């Protein structure tokens, strides 16, 4: 019984940890498929986390916070697009620049505006956070652990953004594989010259793909500061943006495998916090750091071609120039 409820709780934690990864990863799937390296997930999420927490703290509305988070993330994505698509700058350099600038800008603005040492105020008002939605009958269902606990913990009791992220997976898959826009995005990452010859603007497509990534990273960042926790703290993304990109690669730039990778990576995270200092049978205590490093090790193994093969969009990282 004890083990059962532990497993259910770990799985529920997995869903919560996976949410920001999934949102950012779905966004990156579009920008990367259009041929632009999206290393800036980290910065876009962090910027959105700050903006949403700050606006929510001032206005008392998590929804206004969400709007601010999305706007901030989109603004960063557009700066990125301006540098790399319009001016054909190095995509990796542009992303690192944004990540670093945002890592400094968040705490700087937070200190000046709220004077709390680089954080935003604690969000404890009734509408300042995206609270947990309790489904009908969930509290009562706990009385019958199987399947009541599954219902109460796994299906019910998450914030709206968790359900939104889950619903976005089929939407993203449909958009990428069943719409004209999706076909063009996939084509422009494989052969931009052909797309250009067909009279379709390569730059416009890449801007649109990066806009999608901006919106989704905005939601992901908002989730971090106004749903998963109650406010912005310094460096609160803590590498989640890079982990999300790893999930896209691990998911071979495809929606459902990417979902699987996000769940796997989130599960290792949830497991690591459960296993902290717990002695397991046979193997004893597994150091938490080893479990935490697992997603990164797996991604390297995949990129090395030892676990399946990851084939990136063909022209990823190469600025498109009409004149050549």
């Amino acid at each position, binding site marked *: 019984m004890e083990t059962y409820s532990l497993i259910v709780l770990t799985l529920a934690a997995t869903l919560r940890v996976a949410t920001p990864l999934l949102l950012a990863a779905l966004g990156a799937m579009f920008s990367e498929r259009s041929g632009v390296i999206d290393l800036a997930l980290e910065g876009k999420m962090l910027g959105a986390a700050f903006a949403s927490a700050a606006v929510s703290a001032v206005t008392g509305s998590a929804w206004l916070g969400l709007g601010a988070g999305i706007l901030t993330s989109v603004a960063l994505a557009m700066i990125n697009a301006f540098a790399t698509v319009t*001016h054909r700058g*190095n995509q990796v350099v542009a992303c690192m620049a944004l990540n670093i600038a945002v890592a400094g800008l968040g705490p*700087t603005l937070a*200190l000046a505006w709220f004077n709390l040492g680089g954080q935003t105020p604690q969000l404890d008002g009734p509408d300042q956070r995206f609270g947990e939605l309790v489904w009908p009958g969930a509290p009562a269902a706990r009385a019958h652990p199987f399947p009541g606990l599954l219902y109460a913990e796994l299906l019910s009791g998450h914030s709206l953004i968790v359900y939104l992220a889950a619903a976005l997976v089929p939407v993203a898959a449909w958009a990428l594989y069943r719409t004209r826009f999706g076909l063009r995005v996939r084509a422009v990452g494989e052969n931009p010259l052909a797309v250009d010859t067909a009279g379709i603007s390569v730059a416009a497509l890449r801007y649109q793909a990066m806009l999608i990534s901006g919106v989704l990273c905005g939601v992901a960042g908002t989730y971090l500061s106004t749903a998963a926790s109650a406010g912005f703290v310094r460096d609160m993304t803590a590498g989640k943006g890079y982990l999300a990109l790893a999930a896209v690669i691990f998911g071979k730039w495809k929606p459902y495998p990417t979902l699987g990778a996000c769940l796997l990576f989130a599960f290792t995270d949830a497991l690591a916090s459960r296993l902290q200092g717990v002695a397991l049978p046979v193997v004893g205590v597994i150091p938490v*750091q*080893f479990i935490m490093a697992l997603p990164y090790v797996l991604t*390297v193994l995949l*990129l090395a071609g030892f676990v399946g093969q990851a084939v990136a969009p063909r022209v990823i990282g190469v600025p498109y120039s009409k004149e050549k």
Partner: protein
Amino acid sequence: MSAAKQLPRWADLTLLPVIGLVAALLVSGGVIALLGESPAQALKLMVSGAFGTQDAIGYSLYYATNFIFTGLAVAVAFHAGLFNIGGEGQAYIGGLMSGLVCLALGHWPFWAVLPAAVVAGAAGGAAWAFIPAWLQAKRGSHIVITTIMFNFIASSLMTYLLVNVLIKPGQQSPETREFSGSTVMPAAHELLARIGITFTPSPLNLAFGLALAASVLVWIFLWRTRWGYELRVTGQNPAAAVYAGISPPRVIVAAMLLSGALAGCLGLNELMGSQHRIVIDFPAGAGFVGIAVALMGRNHPVGIFFAAVLFGALYQGGSQLSFDMPKINRDMVVVIQGLVILACGAMENLFRVPLAALFGAFGGAVPPPRDRAGEGTRPPAGKQS
């Protein structure tokens, strides 16, 4: 880009970085003004905080030492067409190795410890760069992604080692015991005192000299040896390199080993020179500052030296600024760093094109570009197919 819009080489090497820096400082000044402080006053405080006193200069150059090592590391990889974002992890593992040498050889004299620590640090950094390099060379794994992953793996590994293995017994904070006196880098003020110059104590130490020596060696390697030539050819045109009988996979591995080795020397300054023990997260972002330094310094050791001193001054001046302006903290320096990378790296075409047009309008005929080794806008040579 059409051939008419080329910049003269001197402008590429000096004017563009300066314009980028000015643009970054202007935007930062806007942020400071937005926070309700005077940008001019902030700049004044930062300059005096970085160069106003002897110990301020010492601190600035001490930070610069770290950035010379990581900047050279990024630059060497850049010349081979590779983007090494893993300087942070390579510095971490290299520093671990230097630190372990200091802990193990505490009874040796300094002149014997120093080469051992340098070799260990370089070997540790090179080893951490080797796997991503090999995967790029042999299996086409994108080196940007693998080096980022290796940063996180290094961080997990070091946390594990410091919390569980290397920690000094009976203490809370995850750090080792202190290095013995004979394994510590001589401080600059001690060395200067020996030749009769008094200098206020600061963490500036012999590692600064080692960083300068490394800069000279990198220059000789890149521009005065066959290996350096092969490396630059591979970076500029892998197809031509193959045609000339150069093996790009071998060059990729060699360039990354050298790059990792340079980053691995960070521990010589940070641990042996200042902390005198292995502490958690000692690279503290220096690997990423290296990107900004290499971009601003146009991947040339001389440029890297000036850019590293500039960033050292920013770090030291930034701490001073946060004392004097309570509304501003040291994170402001990180903002400036990001903006410099944006302006000097990603957006340089924004300045290059109008500047070239200007030169074209006033300068008449401009000689065609020769070796534009400093160009950082090439995508990394990651072949993913």
